[in-house]
């Protein structure tokens, strides 16, 4: 009796936590894109785990079981495979923003081209809410996915990265080793949305959004080094910089105190500091300097770049909302 009475009072329970309203709409409309993104993240994640726990183990086991000195004993083949894997996965993580921008531009451009955006706006949904939800849902998916990817990439990167020729300051690791990956993905989304709204056509929006992200990414990659002050090494220290430090500038100081960048640097082969000093004196050079970013500069540089990308993201998103509100009747 009581159960029957309760059953009639209780609201239908199938309405639970499943997405509703605009969120349902966005998820349903972009289901293929969501599936592609999930597959991309899962495949890359699987690959990274394989690299970390299979390929790297293979290379390391051979190494430790070797009676000779370490350098003779590296399993070159396994190590190279590992290095290739790190390079390729890094590329697939660092450049995924191009794809995001192309998708966002095309999908928004297509909505306006076909008039389906207008269809949504004439339901009980304001254009502003439509865009906000349309950006928020993919933003959540992108943030989750890219966070998983950069954390896994860091796990793969950490051991022995100096053994396969990639350095933290190379374009791909610079992005893939931290939250810059997340920022770039969100930036691609915001830029794509803005371009799609502005051009109102799928194909041109795809091309322009993609092109912008390529240019912006390349430009920022080339200029990331200036986002944090370099460290100056002088004297002998300037001749013996490890690969893990990013070289920025190198020059000599002459007797008159002028820095001459082009002077042939004859003293680089010096075996000791004494030999170096003697050599410098022979050439009438009083000093040598080199500006570098030591590995400790990774985080300052990475976070500064992340800030720049997020600023562009915010600018693109704000402009997109402004454009939408200006074009449609919002009051």
């Amino acid at each position: 009796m009581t159960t029957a009475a309760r059953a009639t009072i209780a609201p239908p329970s199938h309405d639970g936590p499943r997405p509703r309203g605009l969120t349902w709409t966005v998820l349903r409309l972009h289901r293929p894109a969501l599936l592609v993104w999930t597959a991309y993240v899962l495949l890359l994640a699987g690959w990274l785990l394989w690299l970390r726990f299979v390929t790297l183990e293979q290379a390391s086991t051979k190494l430790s079981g070797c009676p000779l000195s370490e350098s003779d004993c590296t399993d070159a083949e396994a190590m190279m495979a590992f290095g290739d894997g790190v390079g390729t996965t890094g590329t697939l993580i660092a450049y995924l923003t191009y794809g995001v921008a192309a998708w966002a531009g095309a999908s928004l451009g297509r909505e306006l081209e076909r008039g389906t955006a207008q269809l949504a706006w004439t339901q009980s949904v304001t254009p502003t809410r439509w865009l906000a939800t349309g950006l928020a849902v993919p933003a959540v998916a992108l943030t989750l996915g890219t966070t998983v990817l950069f954390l896994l990439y860091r796990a793969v990167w950490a051991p022995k990265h100096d053994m396969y020729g990639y350095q933290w300051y190379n374009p791909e690791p610079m992005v893939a080793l931290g939250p810059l990956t997340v920022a770039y993905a969100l930036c691609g989304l915001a830029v794509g949305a803005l371009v799609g709204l502005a051009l109102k056509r799928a194909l041109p929006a795809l091309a322009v959004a993609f092109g912008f992200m390529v240019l912006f990414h390349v430009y920022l990659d080339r200029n990331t080094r200036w986002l944090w002050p370099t460290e100056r090494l002088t004297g002998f220290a300037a001749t013996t910089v490890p690969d893990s430090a990013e070289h920025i500038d190198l020059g000599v100081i002459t007797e008159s105190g002028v820095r001459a960048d082009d002077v042939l640097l004859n003293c680089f082969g010096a075996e000791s500091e004494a030999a170096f000093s003697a050599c410098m004196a022979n050439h009438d050079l009083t000093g040598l300097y080199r500006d570098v970013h030591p590995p400790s500069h990774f985080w300052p540089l990475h976070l500064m770049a992340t800030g720049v990308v997020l600023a562009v993201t915010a600018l693109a998103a704000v402009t997109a909302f402004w454009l939408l509100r200006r074009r449609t009747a919002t009051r």
Partner: protein
Amino acid sequence: MTGTALEAAALGKKFGRRKAGWALHDCTLRIPAGRVCGLVGPNGAGKSTLLAHAAGLLAPTEGSIRVLGTTPAAARERIAYVAQDKPLYPQLTVAETLRLGRELNPGHWDAAVAGRVVDEGGLDRDAKIRSLSGGQRTRVALALALGKRPELLLLDEPMADLDPLARHQLMGTLLADSAEHGTTVVMSSHVVAELEGSCDHLLLLGEGRVRLAGPLDELLAAHTLVTGPSSGDLAPHTVVESRTTGRQVTALIRPRGPVGAGWQTDEPTLEELVLAHLRAPQAPALTLMDDGADGGETDGAEVQEAAV
């Protein structure tokens, strides 16, 4: 239901920076609530632009538009709009499209009405929108619009893709539904025959301005088709259009007082009225108001100079 469904004051919309880019210019009109209003005019007259403004999809360049006593944005939940090309998401099924209507119109979605419109066309609910014909798509678009239970239904060329039978049947559904709920319908068309028998209000647009507006029967009554000798004088009547064939002249006039002897008079049909105005863009505009009970009349010819 009384009041105003749609009201525009000096509404203007310019697309692009071209000087000739005015799609609507100095457009002033009023459509009373509860009417079925036909919106006619040649291609490029501004019909779609006017409807898009009423639906809140476009912001006016100048002037203002009010819908159901408020702004289009504030009336969003009470308006339904079907655009000319009947946009729908091609990847959704019919059932998912109706679900979309339910999800995006929480609290005022009438699944029964929407379902009925779809079922009357014998549509398979699991069929993807992209597999439907143009006419079937129109049916789904109309189902989405009617399911919203709007107070104002804006339809841009709604029947263009339908065969005569489907057109007749859908129009019947539409009119019955609007009569039952007192819905105001504004539908554009350049097929005048489509409007005959379904509209009780007419709005004729030309070059972005109102050419003719008012209750259909009063507009027809305000015009007379006259035939007489080509030497005849039609002053002081307003001549909308006249055509001479041989020694005979046929003219559509707005009579001022009794028409002189020697003229054969006829009441024009809707088609004749519209065609005469389309052929004579220089004819003065005419707006007949039906405010309140007195049916006050304003001859636009005297009040507002027509565009030349």
